[in-house]
């Protein structure tokens, strides 16, 4: 209580005397904040400790660049897993982003409030479904649908692209990407809604007053204002897609190969760790899996840094209106 009243009495730049409760308070918060970093550091240290021997055995560059994963011969190449992780996440983003942003725009800009509350509920419900349920749904509903008719249809119409060639197996990058898209849709949508709601009404009204259509108002005033936030929302969705394990394992086909076609089976970093860790034979195999975890960590960090840069760049955008 006293601490709260203190600033009222003292002018902003004055407090030179020591304020014990404040010090304790800020020290405690600092400690809690550091704890997060410490936990992250311990995770990295432990992964390096377990994975180190396997990485040295293979060589850092070879580990990342080789595409053969042969446990019985202690040959460890992580490229197929990195490739599969990135491809499935990319497919998920491509599919989920337009839907999420469109949905968010519809709910904030067009829909009457009653519709908004009705539609928002199932979206948040989607976020609460356990990933193993998504996986089972993918395996028993989505995959048969992809095998026939979706993939043959794609091959017929877009088959000139290498992405849509090869036998329609069902299990593969496409199936994993679609399941991931559905899983990250609620994340991106709900954050995008929050962001769009912060857009000042005056911006919209200004654009409309100048004779803009609804679409033009959204395009020139709402979207630029919300761009940074939408990029942030996308990155959160991407984070979930990169790390998703269970659902992906069940539909990706678990084959450590690199193929251009989205129809082919692949593998992802979290999936191989989940699959092989329980029965990993020998320290080298366990180590190689820990090294994959380290790699997943690295991929996540790199993408997060990229996201930060992207957000910063979009903030500097010319149409940004100072808040």
């Amino acid at each position: 209580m006293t601490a709260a009243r203190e600033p009222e009495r003292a002018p902003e730049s004055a407090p030179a005397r020591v304020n014990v409760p404040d010090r304790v308070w800020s020290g405690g918060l600092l400690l809690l904040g550091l704890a997060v970093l410490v936990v992250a550091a311990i995770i990295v240290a432990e992964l390096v400790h377990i994975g180190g021997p396997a990485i040295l055995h293979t060589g850092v560059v070879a580990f990342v660049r080789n595409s053969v994963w042969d446990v019985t011969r202690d040959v460890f190449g992580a490229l197929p897993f990195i490739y599969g992780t990135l491809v499935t996440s990319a497919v998920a983003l491509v599919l989920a982003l337009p839907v999420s942003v469109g949905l968010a725009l519809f709910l904030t800009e067009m829909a009457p409030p009653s519709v908004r509350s009705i539609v928002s509920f199932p979206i948040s419900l989607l976020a609460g479904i356990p990933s193993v349920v998504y996986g089972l749904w993918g395996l028993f509903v989505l995959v048969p649908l992809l095998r026939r008719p979706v993939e043959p249809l794609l091959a017929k119409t877009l088959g000139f692209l290498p992405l849509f060639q090869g036998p329609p197996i069902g299990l593969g990058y496409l199936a994993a990407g679609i399941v991931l898209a559905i899983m990250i849709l609620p994340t991106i949508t709900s954050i995008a809604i929050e962001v769009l709601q912060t857009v000042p009404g005056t911006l919209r009204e200004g654009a409309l007053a100048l004779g803009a259509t609804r679409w033009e108002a959204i395009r020139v005033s709402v979207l630029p204002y919300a761009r940074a936030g939408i990029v942030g929302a996308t990155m959160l969705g991407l984070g979930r897609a990169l790390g998703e394990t269970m659902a992906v394992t069940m539909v990706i086909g678990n084959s450590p190969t690199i193929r251009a076609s989205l129809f082919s089976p692949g593998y992802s970093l979290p999936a191989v760790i989940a699959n092989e860790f329980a029965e990993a034979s020998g320290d080298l195999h366990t180590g190689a899996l820990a090294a994959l975890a380290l790699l997943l960590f690295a991929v996540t960090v790199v993408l997060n840094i990229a996201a930060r840069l992207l957000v910063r760049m979009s903030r500097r955008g010319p149409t940004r209106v100072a808040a």
Partner: protein
Amino acid sequence: MKTLLVISGLALGLAGAAFANNLLINGAGATFPFPIYSKWFSEYNKLHPDVQINYQSIGSGGGIKQIIERTVDFGASDAPMTEEELKKAPGVVHIPTVMGAVVVVYNLPGVGSLRLSPETLANVFLGKVQNWSDAAIAKDNPGAKLPDSAIAVVHRSDGSGTTAVFTDYLAKVSPEWKSGPGAGKSVNWPVGLGGKGNEGVTGTVKQTEGGIGYVELAYANQNKLLMVDLKNHDGQWVKASLDSVSAAAAKAEIPADYRVSITDAPGKEAYPISAFTYLLVYKDQADPAKGQALIHFLWWAIHDGQKMASALDYAPLPGPLVKKVEATLQSITVQGKAVLANRK
């Protein structure tokens, strides 16, 4: 939530009080024998209310790790321990408990029975035979109407004893498999899709016309899957059954430490992809009470316990082998003293 905590706390407290004077033996390991083991532990507890056995089915690898670190009283594994692992845990004895088998399942509408010779089977999983109408398959199945459709190979994606047994068999019958993918819990599969667990493989095979995969016999029996007949070491076509699996251990040469693969075993009736599952115990037990109880339990398991095996789709150990295991159990000591020396 709170009430739940209180209730479970009470339950734990009560359980703790009830078993306060009882012996708790801890074990961990293989998931494959978990159904029979949990049956054994509960039946044995009915006979000996003072002995409680707690088992965590965390996988064979975990079982071996834990017995090496002595964090459990016994381990369990589908694959015998390697030399390297045994060096870390000198004095560990393998006790075969029951037998299992790996069966090849397929999905070909209109084809009710199918035979595959060892070479053809290996070539299918090597990706060299890619169509069901291939001459090699036709040769094994004279008169059968085989469709002109692609073979979709399905294998386990998770590291597993099932894969270890299956690839061990392929490596024995096919030099090309041996020098190629080799044998192990996870191998570098030349072709195919990976399914997680028996259910993952089954699900994928069932969904994919032309699919072929491998699962545990118990799992295939319980889910009524179509199984491929295989040609055994003696050149006979055999169906996978509990009898043909037990037969595989009858004629196989089994060393004193039981660390042997009995895939492709001799014997007219022997099913070629059979395997033991083991309990792992130290030859000299450190804890007198636990050691005694554990040895008596093992004795019970290889005698009375065997009768419960077939109901749960495990093949019991053949008689001569039980005699051998008896001798092994008699050699286990508690702080240097024999326990079962005079037991018959």
